[in-house]
Protein backbone atom coordinates (compact mmCIF):
# COMPACT_ATOMS: atom_id res chain seq x y z
CA UNK A 1 0.00 0.00 0.00
CA UNK A 2 2.93 2.39 0.68
CA UNK A 3 6.16 2.82 -1.30
CA UNK A 4 9.22 1.75 0.67
CA UNK A 5 11.25 4.77 -0.22
CA UNK A 6 8.84 7.35 1.19
CA UNK A 7 9.30 8.82 4.63
CA UNK A 8 6.70 7.35 7.09
CA UNK A 9 5.27 10.79 7.84
CA UNK A 10 4.91 11.59 4.21
CA UNK A 11 3.24 8.30 3.67
CA UNK A 12 0.67 9.00 6.34
CA UNK A 13 0.03 12.49 5.00
CA UNK A 14 -0.43 11.29 1.50
CA UNK A 15 -2.77 8.59 2.71
CA UNK A 16 -4.90 11.06 4.61
CA UNK A 17 -5.00 13.37 1.59
CA UNK A 18 -6.60 10.79 -0.61
CA UNK A 19 -10.24 11.56 -1.33
CA UNK A 20 -12.66 9.33 0.58
CA UNK A 21 -15.23 7.47 -1.43
CA UNK A 22 -18.69 8.00 0.16
CA UNK A 23 -21.81 6.15 -0.83
CA UNK A 24 -23.98 8.64 -2.74
CA UNK A 25 -27.13 7.31 -0.94
CA UNK A 26 -25.72 7.99 2.54
CA UNK A 27 -27.34 11.42 2.93
CA UNK A 28 -30.73 10.05 2.04
CA UNK A 29 -30.46 7.21 4.53
CA UNK A 30 -29.38 9.49 7.37
CA UNK A 31 -32.23 11.90 6.76
CA UNK A 32 -34.69 9.04 6.64
CA UNK A 33 -33.45 7.70 10.00
CA UNK A 34 -33.86 11.13 11.60
CA UNK A 35 -37.41 11.46 10.27
CA UNK A 36 -38.36 7.97 11.50
CA UNK A 37 -36.92 8.66 14.94
CA UNK A 38 -38.95 11.83 15.43
CA UNK A 39 -42.28 10.28 14.49
CA UNK A 40 -41.69 7.12 16.60
CA UNK A 41 -40.95 8.79 19.97
CA UNK A 42 -43.44 11.67 20.08
CA UNK A 43 -44.83 11.88 23.69
CA UNK A 44 -48.53 11.41 24.30
CA UNK A 45 -50.97 13.99 25.61
CA UNK A 46 -50.78 12.60 29.17
CA UNK A 47 -47.00 12.92 29.21
CA UNK A 48 -47.21 16.46 27.88
CA UNK A 49 -49.82 17.33 30.53
CA UNK A 50 -47.77 15.76 33.33
CA UNK A 51 -44.65 17.69 32.22
CA UNK A 52 -46.74 20.86 32.18
CA UNK A 53 -47.99 20.15 35.68
CA UNK A 54 -44.62 19.41 37.26
CA UNK A 55 -42.77 22.23 35.56
CA UNK A 56 -41.91 24.82 38.26
CA UNK A 57 -43.50 28.24 37.87
CA UNK A 58 -43.51 31.47 39.71
CA UNK A 59 -46.88 32.93 40.68
CA UNK A 60 -47.39 36.57 41.42
CA UNK A 61 -50.23 37.09 43.94
CA UNK A 62 -51.19 40.33 45.56
CA UNK A 63 -51.70 40.38 49.36
CA UNK A 64 -55.41 40.99 48.84
CA UNK A 65 -55.67 38.01 46.52
CA UNK A 66 -53.85 35.78 49.01
CA UNK A 67 -56.21 36.86 51.79
CA UNK A 68 -59.26 36.18 49.63
CA UNK A 69 -57.95 32.71 48.76
CA UNK A 70 -57.29 31.90 52.43
CA UNK A 71 -60.77 33.10 53.42
CA UNK A 72 -62.33 30.94 50.71
CA UNK A 73 -60.45 27.85 51.90
CA UNK A 74 -61.44 28.52 55.52
CA UNK A 75 -65.09 28.86 54.52
CA UNK A 76 -64.88 25.60 52.60
CA UNK A 77 -63.39 23.73 55.57
CA UNK A 78 -65.98 25.21 57.92
CA UNK A 79 -68.82 24.11 55.65
CA UNK A 80 -67.62 20.52 55.53
CA UNK A 81 -69.84 17.90 57.28
CA UNK A 82 -68.88 17.42 60.91
CA UNK A 83 -68.42 21.15 61.59
CA UNK A 84 -70.87 23.63 63.02
CA UNK A 85 -74.05 21.78 64.10
CA UNK A 86 -72.19 18.58 64.82
CA UNK A 87 -74.26 15.45 64.26
CA UNK A 88 -74.15 12.92 67.05
CA UNK A 89 -71.64 10.15 66.33
CA UNK A 90 -72.98 6.72 65.55
CA UNK A 91 -72.95 4.05 68.19
CA UNK A 92 -70.63 1.13 67.71
CA UNK A 93 -71.45 -2.54 67.36
CA UNK A 94 -72.48 -4.88 70.14
CA UNK A 95 -70.18 -6.68 72.62
CA UNK A 96 -70.62 -9.76 74.76
CA UNK A 97 -71.47 -9.20 78.41
CA UNK A 98 -71.57 -11.81 81.12
CA UNK A 99 -74.07 -11.52 83.95
CA UNK A 100 -73.46 -13.48 87.14
CA UNK A 101 -75.59 -13.83 90.24
CA UNK A 102 -75.40 -16.01 93.33
CA UNK A 103 -78.82 -17.42 94.18
CA UNK A 104 -78.69 -20.22 96.76
CA UNK A 105 -81.48 -22.80 96.61
CA UNK A 106 -82.92 -21.28 93.42
CA UNK A 107 -84.50 -23.64 90.90
CA UNK A 108 -84.55 -21.13 88.05
CA UNK A 109 -83.17 -17.65 87.49
CA UNK A 110 -84.00 -15.29 84.62
CA UNK A 111 -82.18 -12.21 83.42
CA UNK A 112 -84.69 -9.49 82.52
CA UNK A 113 -84.07 -5.97 81.37
CA UNK A 114 -84.32 -3.30 78.71
CA UNK A 115 -82.49 -5.63 76.31
CA UNK A 116 -85.16 -8.35 76.30
CA UNK A 117 -88.42 -6.47 76.85
CA UNK A 118 -88.38 -7.46 80.54
CA UNK A 119 -89.58 -10.88 79.44
CA UNK A 120 -88.67 -13.55 81.98
CA UNK A 121 -88.83 -16.31 79.37
CA UNK A 122 -86.30 -14.82 76.98
CA UNK A 123 -82.99 -15.10 78.85
CA UNK A 124 -82.93 -17.96 81.35
CA UNK A 125 -79.64 -18.09 83.26
CA UNK A 126 -77.56 -21.28 83.43
CA UNK A 127 -76.37 -22.77 86.68
CA UNK A 128 -72.64 -23.18 87.07
CA UNK A 129 -71.42 -26.55 85.66
CA UNK A 130 -69.58 -27.11 88.94
CA UNK A 131 -72.83 -26.91 90.85
CA UNK A 132 -73.45 -24.48 93.64
CA UNK A 133 -75.50 -21.35 93.46
CA UNK A 134 -73.80 -19.36 90.72
CA UNK A 135 -75.96 -18.57 87.69
CA UNK A 136 -74.65 -16.97 84.51
CA UNK A 137 -75.87 -15.60 81.21
CA UNK A 138 -73.98 -14.01 78.31
CA UNK A 139 -75.67 -11.42 76.12
CA UNK A 140 -74.57 -9.24 73.21
CA UNK A 141 -75.25 -5.60 74.03
CA UNK A 142 -74.95 -2.52 71.86
CA UNK A 143 -73.49 0.64 73.40
CA UNK A 144 -75.97 2.27 75.73
CA UNK A 145 -77.35 2.22 79.25
CA UNK A 146 -79.63 -0.64 80.25
CA UNK A 147 -81.68 -1.36 83.36
CA UNK A 148 -81.96 -4.97 84.41
CA UNK A 149 -82.60 -7.32 87.31
CA UNK A 150 -82.58 -11.01 88.15
CA UNK A 151 -85.87 -12.82 88.71
CA UNK A 152 -85.42 -15.83 90.99
CA UNK A 153 -88.00 -18.62 90.85
CA UNK A 154 -90.45 -16.31 89.11
CA UNK A 155 -91.17 -14.18 92.15
CA UNK A 156 -88.08 -12.82 93.90
CA UNK A 157 -86.25 -9.82 92.45
CA UNK A 158 -82.51 -9.36 92.91
CA UNK A 159 -80.34 -6.44 91.86
CA UNK A 160 -76.83 -7.15 90.62
CA UNK A 161 -74.46 -6.58 93.55
CA UNK A 162 -71.60 -6.04 91.08
CA UNK A 163 -73.29 -3.21 89.20
CA UNK A 164 -74.66 0.24 90.00
CA UNK A 165 -78.21 0.30 91.26
CA UNK A 166 -80.81 2.14 89.24
CA UNK A 167 -81.48 5.38 91.03
CA UNK A 168 -84.94 5.89 89.57
CA UNK A 169 -86.45 2.67 90.87
CA UNK A 170 -90.15 3.43 90.85
CA UNK A 171 -91.74 0.02 90.99
CA UNK A 172 -90.68 -1.19 94.40
CA UNK A 173 -88.25 -3.84 93.18
CA UNK A 174 -84.53 -3.20 92.73
CA UNK A 175 -82.89 -2.82 89.34
CA UNK A 176 -79.30 -2.45 88.26
CA UNK A 177 -77.68 -0.57 85.43
CA UNK A 178 -75.18 -1.73 82.86
CA UNK A 179 -73.38 0.78 80.68
CA UNK A 180 -71.84 -0.44 77.45
CA UNK A 181 -69.21 1.73 75.83
CA UNK A 182 -68.22 1.91 72.22
CA UNK A 183 -64.58 2.93 72.57
Amino acid at each position, binding site marked *: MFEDRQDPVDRIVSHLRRPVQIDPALDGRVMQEIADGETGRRPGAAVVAWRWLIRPRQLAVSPLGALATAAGLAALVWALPGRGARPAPAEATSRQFQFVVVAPRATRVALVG*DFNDWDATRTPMRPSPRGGSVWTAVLPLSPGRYRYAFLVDGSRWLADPAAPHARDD*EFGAPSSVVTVG*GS
Partner: protein
Amino acid sequence: MPRSLAAAGALAALLAATAVAQDPRLGRLDATARPLVAGVIDSARAAGLPTEPLVQRALEGATKGAPGTLIASAVQRLAADLGRARAVLGAGATPPELEAGAAALRAGAGPAVLAQLRRSRRQTITVPLAVLADLVASGVPVDSAAAAVLALAASARDADLIDLRRAVERDIALGAAPTAATAAAMAGVFGADALHVNAGARDARPGRP
Protein backbone atom coordinates in the same frame (compact mmCIF):
# COMPACT_ATOMS: atom_id res chain seq x y z
CA MET B 1 -125.88 7.47 83.34
CA PRO B 2 -125.48 3.80 82.37
CA ARG B 3 -125.31 4.90 78.76
CA SER B 4 -122.43 7.30 79.48
CA LEU B 5 -120.64 4.60 81.46
CA ALA B 6 -120.98 2.23 78.55
CA ALA B 7 -119.66 4.88 76.20
CA ALA B 8 -116.67 5.52 78.44
CA GLY B 9 -115.97 1.80 78.65
CA ALA B 10 -116.19 1.46 74.88
CA LEU B 11 -113.81 4.40 74.44
CA ALA B 12 -111.33 2.90 76.89
CA ALA B 13 -111.52 -0.43 75.09
CA LEU B 14 -110.98 1.31 71.76
CA LEU B 15 -107.95 3.20 73.08
CA ALA B 16 -106.51 0.02 74.56
CA ALA B 17 -107.00 -1.84 71.28
CA THR B 18 -105.34 1.02 69.40
CA ALA B 19 -102.37 0.94 71.78
CA VAL B 20 -101.89 -2.80 71.25
CA ALA B 21 -102.18 -2.33 67.51
CA GLN B 22 -99.39 0.28 67.67
CA ASP B 23 -97.06 -1.92 69.70
CA PRO B 24 -98.13 -5.48 70.55
CA ARG B 25 -95.81 -5.47 73.57
CA LEU B 26 -98.14 -3.02 75.29
CA GLY B 27 -100.67 -5.86 75.48
CA ARG B 28 -98.81 -6.95 78.63
CA LEU B 29 -100.03 -3.84 80.45
CA ASP B 30 -103.29 -3.89 82.34
CA ALA B 31 -106.35 -2.09 81.03
CA THR B 32 -105.68 0.93 83.23
CA ALA B 33 -102.11 1.54 82.17
CA ARG B 34 -102.40 0.63 78.49
CA PRO B 35 -104.26 3.68 77.13
CA LEU B 36 -102.36 6.06 79.40
CA VAL B 37 -98.99 4.72 78.35
CA ALA B 38 -100.03 4.67 74.71
CA GLY B 39 -100.99 8.33 74.96
CA VAL B 40 -97.61 9.27 76.41
CA ILE B 41 -95.83 7.27 73.72
CA ASP B 42 -97.88 8.93 70.98
CA SER B 43 -97.01 12.36 72.34
CA ALA B 44 -93.34 11.45 72.58
CA ARG B 45 -93.32 10.16 69.03
CA ALA B 46 -94.98 13.34 67.81
CA ALA B 47 -92.31 15.36 69.62
CA GLY B 48 -89.53 13.36 67.98
CA LEU B 49 -88.42 11.65 71.18
CA PRO B 50 -87.31 8.00 71.28
CA THR B 51 -90.21 5.77 72.31
CA GLU B 52 -88.35 2.55 73.03
CA PRO B 53 -87.16 3.65 76.51
CA LEU B 54 -90.78 4.46 77.35
CA VAL B 55 -91.96 1.04 76.20
CA GLN B 56 -89.22 -0.63 78.22
CA ARG B 57 -90.08 1.34 81.36
CA ALA B 58 -93.73 0.32 80.99
CA LEU B 59 -92.76 -3.33 80.46
CA GLU B 60 -90.49 -3.19 83.52
CA GLY B 61 -93.44 -2.01 85.59
CA ALA B 62 -95.70 -4.68 84.15
CA THR B 63 -93.19 -7.47 84.81
CA LYS B 64 -92.67 -6.24 88.36
CA GLY B 65 -96.42 -6.19 88.91
CA ALA B 66 -96.69 -2.45 89.56
CA PRO B 67 -100.12 -0.77 89.54
CA GLY B 68 -101.19 0.73 86.23
CA THR B 69 -101.26 4.29 87.51
CA LEU B 70 -97.71 3.95 88.83
CA ILE B 71 -96.53 2.61 85.48
CA ALA B 72 -98.21 5.46 83.63
CA SER B 73 -96.70 8.10 85.89
CA ALA B 74 -93.23 6.56 85.60
CA VAL B 75 -93.48 6.54 81.82
CA GLN B 76 -94.73 10.11 81.82
CA ARG B 77 -91.84 11.23 84.03
CA LEU B 78 -89.31 9.51 81.78
CA ALA B 79 -90.83 11.18 78.72
CA ALA B 80 -90.42 14.54 80.41
CA ASP B 81 -86.80 13.76 81.26
CA LEU B 82 -86.10 12.69 77.68
CA GLY B 83 -87.58 15.97 76.48
CA ARG B 84 -85.35 17.95 78.86
CA ALA B 85 -82.31 15.97 77.72
CA ARG B 86 -83.13 16.61 74.08
CA ALA B 87 -83.54 20.33 74.75
CA VAL B 88 -80.00 20.42 76.14
CA LEU B 89 -78.23 17.96 73.85
CA GLY B 90 -79.90 19.01 70.62
CA ALA B 91 -82.00 17.32 68.00
CA GLY B 92 -79.01 15.34 66.73
CA ALA B 93 -78.60 13.40 69.98
CA THR B 94 -78.96 9.64 69.62
CA PRO B 95 -81.61 7.70 71.60
CA PRO B 96 -78.95 6.16 73.90
CA GLU B 97 -77.55 9.64 74.57
CA LEU B 98 -81.00 10.96 75.39
CA GLU B 99 -81.69 8.03 77.70
CA ALA B 100 -78.37 8.49 79.51
CA GLY B 101 -78.95 12.24 79.57
CA ALA B 102 -82.35 11.74 81.15
CA ALA B 103 -80.75 9.55 83.83
CA ALA B 104 -78.08 12.17 84.49
CA LEU B 105 -80.68 14.91 84.82
CA ARG B 106 -82.74 12.71 87.14
CA ALA B 107 -79.61 12.13 89.22
CA GLY B 108 -79.27 15.86 89.71
CA ALA B 109 -76.80 16.97 87.04
CA GLY B 110 -77.58 20.41 85.71
CA PRO B 111 -78.28 21.15 82.03
CA ALA B 112 -75.04 23.13 81.87
CA VAL B 113 -73.04 19.98 82.64
CA LEU B 114 -74.75 18.10 79.82
CA ALA B 115 -74.15 20.95 77.40
CA GLN B 116 -70.49 21.15 78.40
CA LEU B 117 -70.10 17.40 77.87
CA ARG B 118 -71.61 17.74 74.41
CA ARG B 119 -69.17 20.49 73.50
CA SER B 120 -66.09 18.83 74.93
CA ARG B 121 -66.35 15.36 73.39
CA ARG B 122 -66.40 14.51 69.72
CA GLN B 123 -67.47 10.92 70.36
CA THR B 124 -70.86 9.88 71.64
CA ILE B 125 -71.51 11.06 75.20
CA THR B 126 -73.71 8.13 76.20
CA VAL B 127 -71.10 6.64 78.50
CA PRO B 128 -69.98 9.90 80.16
CA LEU B 129 -73.60 10.69 80.94
CA ALA B 130 -74.28 7.19 82.23
CA VAL B 131 -71.13 7.20 84.36
CA LEU B 132 -72.14 10.58 85.77
CA ALA B 133 -75.55 9.20 86.74
CA ASP B 134 -73.99 6.05 88.21
CA LEU B 135 -71.45 7.98 90.28
CA VAL B 136 -74.20 10.10 91.77
CA ALA B 137 -76.21 6.96 92.46
CA SER B 138 -73.15 5.62 94.31
CA GLY B 139 -73.22 8.60 96.63
CA VAL B 140 -70.73 10.91 94.94
CA PRO B 141 -71.91 14.53 95.14
CA VAL B 142 -73.15 15.81 91.80
CA ASP B 143 -70.50 18.53 91.58
CA SER B 144 -67.64 16.10 92.21
CA ALA B 145 -69.03 13.55 89.77
CA ALA B 146 -69.56 16.19 87.10
CA ALA B 147 -66.05 17.59 87.56
CA ALA B 148 -64.51 14.13 87.26
CA VAL B 149 -66.44 13.20 84.14
CA LEU B 150 -65.85 16.58 82.50
CA ALA B 151 -62.12 16.34 83.18
CA LEU B 152 -61.94 13.01 81.37
CA ALA B 153 -64.59 13.43 78.71
CA ALA B 154 -62.51 15.16 76.06
CA SER B 155 -59.85 12.49 75.69
CA ALA B 156 -60.80 9.35 77.62
CA ARG B 157 -62.22 6.26 76.00
CA ASP B 158 -65.56 4.87 77.12
CA ALA B 159 -63.71 1.99 78.78
CA ASP B 160 -61.62 4.44 80.82
CA LEU B 161 -64.72 6.17 82.12
CA ILE B 162 -66.32 2.86 83.05
CA ASP B 163 -63.11 1.86 84.82
CA LEU B 164 -63.21 5.14 86.72
CA ARG B 165 -66.72 4.34 87.90
CA ARG B 166 -65.65 0.83 88.95
CA ALA B 167 -62.69 2.20 90.88
CA VAL B 168 -64.87 4.69 92.72
CA GLU B 169 -67.48 2.05 93.60
CA ARG B 170 -64.80 -0.35 94.78
CA ASP B 171 -63.25 2.23 97.08
CA ILE B 172 -66.65 3.23 98.43
CA ALA B 173 -67.41 -0.42 99.11
CA LEU B 174 -64.11 -0.62 100.99
CA GLY B 175 -65.17 2.25 103.20
CA ALA B 176 -63.84 5.37 101.47
CA ALA B 177 -65.89 8.53 101.41
CA PRO B 178 -67.42 9.02 97.93
CA THR B 179 -65.62 12.30 97.31
CA ALA B 180 -62.29 10.86 98.41
CA ALA B 181 -62.86 7.76 96.29
CA THR B 182 -63.51 9.95 93.25
CA ALA B 183 -60.39 12.02 93.90
CA ALA B 184 -58.28 8.87 94.28
CA ALA B 185 -59.61 7.40 91.05
CA MET B 186 -58.91 10.63 89.20
CA ALA B 187 -55.37 10.68 90.58
CA GLY B 188 -54.93 7.17 89.22
CA VAL B 189 -56.14 8.22 85.79
CA PHE B 190 -53.94 11.27 85.53
CA GLY B 191 -51.02 9.71 87.35
CA ALA B 192 -49.65 6.59 85.77
CA ASP B 193 -51.96 6.04 82.81
CA ALA B 194 -52.92 2.87 84.65
CA LEU B 195 -56.32 2.51 83.03
CA HIS B 196 -54.82 1.68 79.67
CA VAL B 197 -52.94 -1.33 81.00
CA ASN B 198 -54.12 -4.64 79.58
CA ALA B 199 -56.99 -3.00 77.71
CA GLY B 200 -56.71 -5.47 74.86
CA ALA B 201 -57.13 -8.47 77.12
CA ARG B 202 -60.08 -6.81 78.82
CA ASP B 203 -61.87 -6.30 75.49
CA ALA B 204 -61.29 -9.90 74.43
CA ARG B 205 -63.46 -11.47 77.08
CA PRO B 206 -67.06 -10.86 78.06
CA GLY B 207 -67.34 -7.80 80.20
CA ARG B 208 -69.04 -7.37 83.52
CA PRO B 209 -71.52 -4.61 84.22
